[in-house]
């Protein structure tokens, strides 16, 4: 295996200085692709996105001498086929539209497409990366998405501060959604990608809120006695599963967001929490009813719970997207991130820290964001589903927690 470490220092953001490091293990079965320079930043953004997928290998364009510019001839392009499988040429016009030519070097086939202009220019490049990725791998790209997370400063001091943040999926464009002296936890995206649900202790006890990330409009969803935790939207956006302890014990409930109707899903003496929807009729959750935390599945209207995890003493914190499930698995005192197909036996361990937690899978199921402990600081990591590409994003001034990958943006 050919291990290459890349370190890229990105632009400092106006409010936060983020250092983005890419650490990638490239293997011979990844597909070589060359991104020719495009005016503006698009080529760099596209290359970084494709690299992060773990399925493509970026070949430096300086290794290709004599490729004609965008719109130019592709005669003799197959002479590059032993260096790269694909060549991307692009051009941004005056309106900000990005035109892309994806050229296959083996057969000189050209795929052309345009990405419409967007006032957020980086999104244009992410959308181009999504299309290129999809053409090559036949998997829908998920680079034009966001990640929400919590950053805490002074975490063990009375001056601690919690910030709920959102950024693009590559960590750029970080913005603060909420700042609080009291704990903020468990961000979760609405299915339309416009609203965040989260837990905040700003009133002295836990409560679940929904907040529109564009307008800032904020509504309390649940402020019941005891725990109000672990919000999870149903895929149709009509209900929210959550953890409540109104009956004296930690149970899963669903709330109909239109009528407010409360439905109890679990009933046990154990801790039942961390619900996540698997389709509109089924909920996967963590319970210690068997003695240690394990994953279970139950109909969303309640009923008989079925245990899903049997290996290892500890399995929790599931997230589901595109028929993939990711969760934390504990092995001999260490906690790692696992990914597998729902109902499948293809479990892979994607992380190698000792205290890895809070995995969230991208909407296409092909990447997982999670938190890994380095020293006394939590760092946000993104890993490809084959484990070959891993990106660390860190905010130097804070402890990063609980990434939540958005659905596809509309």
């Amino acid at each position, binding site marked *: 295996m050919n291990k290459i470490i890349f370190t890229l220092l990105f632009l400092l953001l106006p409010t936060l200085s983020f250092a983005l490091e890419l650490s990638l293990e490239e293997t011979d079965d990844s597909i070589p692709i060359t991104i020719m320079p495009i005016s503006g930043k698009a080529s760099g953004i596209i290359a970084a996105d494709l690299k992060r997928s773990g399925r493509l290998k970026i070949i430096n364009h300086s290794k290709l001498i004599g490729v004609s510019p965008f719109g130019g001839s592709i005669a003799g392009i197959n002479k590059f086929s032993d260096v790269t499988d694909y060549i991307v040429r692009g051009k941004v016009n005056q309106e900000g539209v990005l035109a892309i030519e994806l050229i296959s070097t083996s057969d000189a086939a050209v795929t052309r497409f345009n990405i419409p202009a967007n006032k957020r220019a980086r999104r244009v490049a992410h959308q181009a990366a999504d299309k290129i990725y999809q053409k090559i791998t036949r998997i829908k790209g998920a680079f034009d998405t966001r990640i929400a997370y919590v950053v805490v400063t002074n975490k063990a001091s009375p001056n601690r501060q919690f910030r709920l943040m959102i950024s693009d999926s590559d960590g750029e464009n970080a913005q603060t959604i909420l700042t609080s002296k009291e704990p903020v936890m468990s961000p979760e995206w609405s299915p339309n990608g416009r609203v965040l649900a989260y837990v905040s202790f700003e009133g002295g006890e836990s409560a679940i809120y929904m907040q529109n990330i564009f307008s800032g409009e904020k509504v309390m969803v649940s402020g019941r006695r005891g725990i109000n935790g*672990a919000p999870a939207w149903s895929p149709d956006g009509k209900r929210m599963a959550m953890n409540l302890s109104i009956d004296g014990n930690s149970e899963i409930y669903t709330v109909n967001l239109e009528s407010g109707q409360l439905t109890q899903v679990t009933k046990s003496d154990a801790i039942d929490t961390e619900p996540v929807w698997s389709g509109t009729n089924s909920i996967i959750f963590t319970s210690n009813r068997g003695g240690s935390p394990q994953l279970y599945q139950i109909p969303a209207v309640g009923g008989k719970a079925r245990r899903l995890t049997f290996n290892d003493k500890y399995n929790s914190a599931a997230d589901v997207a595109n028929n993939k499930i990711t969760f934390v698995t504990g092995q001999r005192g260490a906690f790692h991130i696992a990914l597998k197909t729902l109902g499948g036996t293809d479990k892979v361990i994607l992380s190698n820290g000792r205290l890895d937690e809070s995995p969230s899978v991208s909407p296409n199921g092909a990447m997982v964001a999670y938190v890994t402990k380095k020293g006394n600081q939590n760092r946000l990591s993104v890993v490809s589903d084959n484990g070959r590409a891993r990106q660390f994003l860190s905010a130097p001034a804070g402890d990063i927690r609980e990434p939540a990958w958005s659905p596809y943006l509309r």
Partner: protein
Amino acid sequence: MNTLKTKLLIPITIGFFTLVGCSQQVQNDPDAGVAVNAGEAVINSSGKGANRGSKKSNIRSTVSSNVRNNQSRAVKRGGGAANINRADGSDLTLAGLKDPNNLLSQRIIYFDYDKAAIRPEFMVLINTHAKLLAKYPQLRMTLGGHADERGSREYNVALSENRAKSVKRIMGTQGARASQIRTVGYGEEVPIVAGKGERSWQKNRRVEIKYDNY
């Protein structure tokens, strides 16, 4: 590892003799106390040294017999510090809440990993606060439950609420009214110390007693 064990055994031994001797001495060093707990964890995880094992059980049985025999002799091990004080009826006043030598000044109860069960050595402390609540029906408190950083965050919220509820349940048996006690599970979000390892984790697995207005 050897050095670590040696260091940890010293506070264990101190704790052992202090307890056996029923000393009136007040120790206010929380670190010494945590060292006792961390030492126990080392003993548990190694599980080999018969000597150390017996010392551990001696501590436990001494604490238990103190609890059983005479509640006027309160064994204080908030953070494990062997701190013995009188906590009979005469000390149960609101003024006692502000007296650093009174058992009522101890406001933290520590827990084992992934457990909400009360350790026997904290029974006297909990009962003393409960009796104060029973004596002053207007008095209110919040029991804030906390967890260490291991395990998922929402699971830890539930675990820490269970810890607070365990304390509340025992206080109820001593005459405290349910309406006097509010429980909140903070999970692992509000640690006392940031470090990892059992020494830090033990300090963070706790229930904090906070009186309204005191």
